């Protein structure tokens, strides 16, 4: 972006990893980079737990009847898998890890706007996580991660605790979102207008809007649920005079926008990785920026498409289906923009780019299969079958995870100052692609053939596809394990990364690898557009003149 500035590290400040070592210094740090890394390892730990649960679930489904566990245990396993993966992994993953680490760097800032609030969000996350795990000691939770009433108000176990955990975790998410909005408004480098923001920032900003507007609704809903369970106030349970479908409206009013809390950050990563490895300006900057905002806003108007068969009126069904289709447009625009960015570029198939291409393919399948579910008559057939399970794993699990891995491999040299083994990382990426599709493609077919979700026993006609899916889950697990091991192995060697290993144009590549605690020796100044890859980039002022 501005290579006119002096390179860092020349002044001899130690980098943020070497300065103030020791556990206590890490636990009390307000450095956004350290908080990002602590989020990275916390989320990774829960991803491993959630992933192991997924393997156990897949193993149970190897045979139509009992394989390794009872129905009660199976129900608890898929509930915990869903709750951990949603609230502890996917929602925080990209904003809290990559956003915390990279957003201030991309803006040329020293830190986020409220560093202490940022640390508080991590502690709140840990408290929420501890509460979620403690439900295991309270007899587990068997409601599914969606906590549908009146089942959730009448079943035993640690439902109240799990619901309160999700409530607490919501605050962690709100704190992060609040921080990103304030940081983007107040801490941009001199010369950086809204349209010189790297698109990662636009994506994070849109995500933050959802985080602070939608999460409180989840909080209120979950509190009402706890009040009903503990004090027997009739809100959702018809036995007490409540309305069970009301809960679904409340729940999806948050949880559908939350889907975009999961995918917008993934798209944000793509908009950085693809131009860098195509060595070409992002195509359609404004279209990508505004489509992020459009997705964030439209995301609030489509919640009831989860309820087409829940006894809603015909009219309401039609409205929500109609609005849902509009979400498809900004998503399609983004995909075409990314492909156009690659067009006539200089494409370097380094690991982050491989993950990005992987993302484009998986997201294309995930997005298009959404059309089946947005359309009313086909959704009636597919609702609550494995087709839905597969669809949301493609968009939420697959796309989010691939984007996280793309971003992690992209910024890893910046995080730890070390390069990883490119061959092993490439093999891991390939295994993940094969494993993911082997796991979830058969689930589309069994779903459209009628296999309902959350089934412990199933009819024998579905066994072949379940076996294929289970074998796929082993390949996927092997790929993820190899990716993690490759990254960890790089930490054993001395720091060898140059400040700008991928020839990126954004500010973070001007900082050292790893950066100093305050990121930059001198405040960077935004002179060129963040995606100007010309040999002699044109200063922003002149470019704007020539554009009008």
């Amino acid at each position: 972006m501005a290579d006119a500035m002096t390179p860092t590290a020349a002044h001899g400040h130690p980098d943020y990893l070497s300065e103030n070592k020791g556990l206590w210094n890490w636990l009390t740090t307000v450095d956004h980079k350290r908080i990002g890394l602590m989020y990275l390892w916390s989320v990774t730990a829960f991803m491993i737990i959630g992933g192991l649960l997924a393997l156990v679930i897949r193993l149970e489904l190897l045979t139509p009847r009992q394989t390794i566990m009872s129905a009660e245990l199976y129900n608890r396993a898929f509930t915990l898998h869903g709750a951990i993966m949603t609230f502890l992994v996917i929602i925080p993953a990209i904003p809290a890890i990559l956003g915390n680490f990279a957003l201030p760097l991309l803006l040329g800032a020293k830190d986020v706007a409220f560093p202490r609030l940022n640390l508080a969000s991590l502690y709140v996350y840990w408290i929420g996580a501890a509460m979620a795990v403690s439900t295991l000691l309270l007899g587990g939770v068997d409601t599914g991660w969606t906590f549908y009433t009146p089942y959730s108000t009448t079943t035993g176990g640690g439902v109240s605790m799990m619901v309160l955990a999700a409530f607490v975790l919501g605050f962690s998410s709100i704190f992060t979102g609040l921080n990103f909005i304030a940081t983007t408004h107040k801490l941009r480098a001199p010369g950086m207008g809204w349209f010189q923001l790297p698109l990662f920032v636009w994506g994070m900003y849109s995500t933050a809007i959802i985080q602070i507007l939608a999460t409180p609704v989840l909080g209120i809903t979950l509190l009402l649920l706890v009040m009903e369970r503990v004090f027997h106030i009739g809100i959702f349970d018809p036995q007490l005079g409540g309305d069970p479908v009301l809960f679904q409206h409340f729940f999806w009013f948050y949880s559908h926008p939350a889907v975009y809390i999961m995918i917008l950050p993934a798209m944000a990563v793509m908009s950085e990785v693809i131009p860098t490895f195509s060595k070409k300006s992002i195509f359609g900057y404004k279209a990508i920026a505004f489509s992020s905002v459009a997705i964030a806003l439209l995301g609030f108007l489509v919640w009831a498409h989860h309820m087409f068969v829940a006894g809603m009126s015909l009219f309401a069904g039609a409205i929500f289906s109609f609005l849902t289709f509009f979400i498809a447009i900004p998503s399609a625009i983004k995909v075409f923009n990314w492909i156009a960015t690659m067009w006539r570029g200089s494409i370097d198939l380094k690991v982050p780019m491989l993950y990005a291409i992987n993302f484009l393919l998986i997201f294309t399948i995930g997005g298009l299969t959404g059309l089946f579910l947005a359309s009313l008559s086909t959704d009636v057939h597919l609702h609550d079958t494995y087709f839905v399970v597969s669809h949301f794993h493609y968009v939420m699990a697959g796309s989010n995870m691939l984007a996280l891995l793309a971003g992690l491999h992209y910024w890893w040299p910046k995080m730890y100052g070390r390069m990883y083994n490119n061959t092993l990382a490439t093999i891991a990426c390939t295994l993940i692609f094969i494993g993911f599709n082997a796991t979830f493609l058969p689930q589309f077919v069994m779903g459209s053939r009628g296999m309902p979700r959350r089934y412990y026993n199933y009819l024998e006609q579905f066994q072949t596809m379940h076996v294929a899916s289970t074998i796929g889950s082993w390949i996927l697990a092997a790929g993820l394990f190899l990716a993690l091991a490759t990254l960890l192995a790089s930490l054993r060697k001395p720091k060898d990364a140059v400040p700008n290993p991928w020839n990126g144009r954004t500010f973070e590549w001007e900082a050292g690898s790893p950066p100093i605690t305050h990121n930059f020796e001198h405040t960077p100044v935004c002179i060129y557009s963040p995606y100007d890859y010309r040999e002699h980039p044109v200063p922003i002022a002149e470019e704007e003149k020539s554009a009008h």
Partner: protein
Amino acid sequence: MNWFRDFLLPKSAASNTGDVDGLFMFITWLTVFFFFFNGGLIWYAVRKWRRRSNDDITPHITHDTKLEIIWSVIPLIVVMFIFFWGFRGYVRAWVVPNDALEIVVTGKKWVWEFEYPDGSRSLNDLHVPLNKPVKLVMHSEDVIHSFFVPAFRIKRDVIPGRYTELWFTATEPGVHQVYCTEYCGKGHSDMLARIFADTPEQYEVFLREGDEQVRKMPLKELGKLVYENKGCATCHSIDGTRGQGPSLKAIYGQQITDAAGKSHTIDANYIRESILNPQASVVAGYEPIMPTFQGLLREREILGMIEYIKSLQ
């Protein structure tokens, strides 16, 4: 390409499924096309413009308004087309024909109970006549369930405290699988039912003699089911307490006197008469308020009732 449809979807067995299947296959082909279209573009770009050196010079293209409008408008047209197609199918599946046979469905952990217009009931097996519209009026006794028939492409949640409806016209004879598709706890995956789409002759037999389950049930058990489900229990206790009518406990073989002062021995004929023509000999001291069950009970159910009363010693 019928093989592809038959691979992805269960065999259709109801009217109205053609439209849903058509849309399903349309979106399927659209998905396949765009996956290979996007994948092909990426593959082409990677092959043609793979980096040769870090000094490669690339053109500075920031946007192309015309192209961007094209690739926004085309998807918009496609999805609006899909919306209207799906909406049309949804409306068709919503409007119930007036002459539909009405069946009440009760979902409870973890069984489906069906009640027919003649008052008879069955568990987990639903008999319907072929080629005749059937309307299900559904409600739940506990948590939310969902009634899903893949072969009919229909599904609707079954909710406590309110009624939801579904309708279909079965066009293929045979047995069709029903699943519960709203998670309802431990027995969720065993909450299955079957729909028997009967030919007119089979349906006649069913109406006359009940379904296979009922036909195979020992008489005494059948009698108990009748006692519990047909409202007998409201007035006649089985533990000796006096209700609107006399208790059924240990009455078989006893002598009673009716309102006219005539005495009877309680035997099979007396029970039969009391069910079909209750006013004929009302036990002294009771009001003549029992309705007749003429036409509401099958012959075997009356025999079952007699056996059941015999067993209440």
